[in-house]
């Protein structure tokens, strides 16, 4: 029992369970799932389907955060990738040609790799702080996305393309399979190769990692590339779901939701240990919260207030000073450096 309590998934799962439980009482419809022409419908399915892009972006973000970094540009990459794919398809003569779809997907993912590599190079080689380095693409990326779409919303009418985001495979939304596939890729990359070990090592102690012979720059570059790819695929799902690309609004606020998902999932913003499954649950929590608020009839924008409290609460719990402030409030006088040294000695 004590072990269960300490498991890193314990708290995220509890929150998720509490949310579901609330829905069970408040809106019993929440759990009903119906079948329509081979598709399953229902709130739970919606959460998975609409949450898919967020989960993807958050998976990529987890690895970046584990290296003590952050990627603010994911929302822009989501928009660019969707825009490029839709543009390629809309230029084609037969929008349903499989070859065209494949090319457009490859183009979009290829561009995402480049954008991720750009971020990675700025952080690793140029040595610019991650927040600042990725800010550049966050600002310029929106412009690039609008440049691609020509400032309009590009709509495509390709049933094959829209299959990615709204098709069904074995009665479940296809996007879920994409997410599961990427999650498996990420898990294999980090747990079956030693990349995961190196990421944690670099995030926890860069100097010591260098001294142990780890190529920190390569590790950092690869996580930003992976994060770019995840965002790119998320962009495909998102644009395919609505069969259109909106350079201005696609993927707006995704970077923030993704960071929130990572933090809720138990990965610290200070780098080091990371938890991919925790992140997935974190993203599901966010999506469930949004859906719940929708269902109980409160304006969905109020989710933001709830999110802000969740961010603060999680960060305060992770903050040493906050815990110290609670536990040692009365005991110690303020000697700068003393607490520091006590922490070093013990």
């Amino acid at each position: 029992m004590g072990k269960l309590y300490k498991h890193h998934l314990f708290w995220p799962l509890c929150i998720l369970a509490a949310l579901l439980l609330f829905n069970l009482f408040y809106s019993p419809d929440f759990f009903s799932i119906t079948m329509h022409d081979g598709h399953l419908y229902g709130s739970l399915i919606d959460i998975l389907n609409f949450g898919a892009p967020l989960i993807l972006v958050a998976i990529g973000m987890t690895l970046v955060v584990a290296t003590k970094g952050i990627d603010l540009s994911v929302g822009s990459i989501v928009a660019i990738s969707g825009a490029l794919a839709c543009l390629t398809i809309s230029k084609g003569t037969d929008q349903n040609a499989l070859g065209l779809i494949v090319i457009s997907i490859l183009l979009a993912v290829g561009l995402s790799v480049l954008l991720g590599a750009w971020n990675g190079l700025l952080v690793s080689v140029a040595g610019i702080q991650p927040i600042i380095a990725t800010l550049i693409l966050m600002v310029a990326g929106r412009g690039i996305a609008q440049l691609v779409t020509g400032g309009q919303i590009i709509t495509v009418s390709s049933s094959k393309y829209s299959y990615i985001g709204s098709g069904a495979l074995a009665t479940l939304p296809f996007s879920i399979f994409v997410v599961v596939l990427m999650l498996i890729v990420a898990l294999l990359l980090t747990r079956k190769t030693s990349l995961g070990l190196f990421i944690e090592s670099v995030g926890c102690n860069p100097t010591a990692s260098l001294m142990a012979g780890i190529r920190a720059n390569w590790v950092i570059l690869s996580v930003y590339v992976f994060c770019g790819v995840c965002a790119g695929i998320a962009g495909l799902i998102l644009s395919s779901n609505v069969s259109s690309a909106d350079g201005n609004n696609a993927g707006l606020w995704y970077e923030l939701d993704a960071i929130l998902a990572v933090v809720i999932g138990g990965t610290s913003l200070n780098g080091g240990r990371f938890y991919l499954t925790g992140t997935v649950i974190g993203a599901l929590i966010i999506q469930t919260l949004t859906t719940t608020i929708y269902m109980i009839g409160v304006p969905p924008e109020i989710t933001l207030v709830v999110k802000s409290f969740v961010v603060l609460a999680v960060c305060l719990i992770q903050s040493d000073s906050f815990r110290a402030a609670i536990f040692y409030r009365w005991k110690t006088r303020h000697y700068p450096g003393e607490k520091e040294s006590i922490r070093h000695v013990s």
Partner: protein
Amino acid sequence: MSTQKPILQMKQIHKRFPGVKALSNVNLRLFPGEVHALMGENGAGKSTLIKVLTGVYSIDEGSVEMEEAPISVQSPLESQAAGISTVYQEVNLCPNLTVAENIFIGREPRKFGRILWKEMNKRAQEILSERLNLQIDVTEPLYMYSVAVQQLVAIARALNISAKVLILDEPTSSLDKNEVQQLFRIMEKLKQDGLAILFVTHFLDQMYEISDRVTILRNGEFVGEYMAKDLPRLDLVLKMIGKELNLLEELPSLAEEYKDSLGEELVKADGLGRKGAIEPFDLSIHKGEVVGLAGLLGSGRTEAARLFFGADKPDSGKLIFSGRSEGVHTPREAIGRRIAFCSENRKTEGIIGDLTVRENIILALQAKQGVFRTISRKQQEEYADEYIRMLNINPPSPDHLIKNLSGGNQQKVLLARWLLTSPQLFILDEPTRGIDIGAKAEIQKLVLSLSRQGMSFLFISSELEEVLRVSGRIAILRDRHKVKEISGKDMSQHQIMQAIAGG
């Protein structure tokens, strides 16, 4: 001078940290118009004493008196207000502000809340030129100037707070010879002005050049206060290291038995050096040999070792591997040449705190093998178990986070990490510091047995017995120079001490 009364007195100071006694029963007297050196090896308690005096740490027991009246130093501000000013080792100023601001910030001359820049610049110029003989443009940002000048600016700031006591915490450690002389001239001048200067240093020559009085600490305890001119160099070193001369019996060296049979040369440093770290030196290491590096703290021991490992880039000389000259530019290249380096900074350059013992053990080997040739979980556990048993790591569980282990056990994990890469040359920088005696002996034995199997070592330690016990040859460093190399019968504590003391 001895008739004078001390301006500042610290009496029977005690300071404890959880599990560590940092200072016990330490006394310190500072006299006006004197330079008072504070000396001691690593962990002697010098910096703790200063932090206590400047209000950064609290005092557990004991009192501080200024001009015979007890004062309280509970914060840096209080200490400053009492007339105690400190210039820290790493200059604690803001490099982005101008020189004048750095001297005045917090006490800028103002009129109706408006800072009078002209007035401030003028006064800054005055202080620098009149008291420190320094003519520089005070409106330039501080980062434009060398560390030496920054140090002087820090002193100017201290003087401007109308200091009675000036603490200089290892001010010379990043200065070159001329800059040190410039600083000393200024210290002489300030001494004439009646200031009491506490000079913390680990350079013996410098201590003798400038100091009137010296207080020695060892392991947090007060060894004694002496007049510098009455204290022979050798005595000083003995007191710092903690040996009485007559007790210096020649210890039987474990190294004796094998040191005649030298293998082929493995690596040779040829004029290897780095400005501000270690002057160019030659040193060759043979197969299966343990070479000791002896010297006081700051003598360039660690700096020399880092050059071997590519952790710092040399700006002169080269490394020669079995006759071929090749550069080692990064730790990764060094590891490729089968060199391992156990840093003295276990926390910052060694352990990865949030990872388990097992992961820390396999880290270097895995890095060497690359991302895709992953060591299987089962293999990892076998390695971990093997080394946990071999090195007696406690708790004997590979899944503990390394940050929760004691220092000695962390050290053993790091040894395991490097041994797993089967190095040819293993550089150990203070491998036994902060470790209990049992573990110490184990590590020493391990070094000897591995060297018999053909592994070479570069062994750095502040403890002479230890260096003597394991080394076949010892290179001695003083003030960033390699001064002597001794081997065989010549190796004795006495010999080493004399070389360290120099003069």
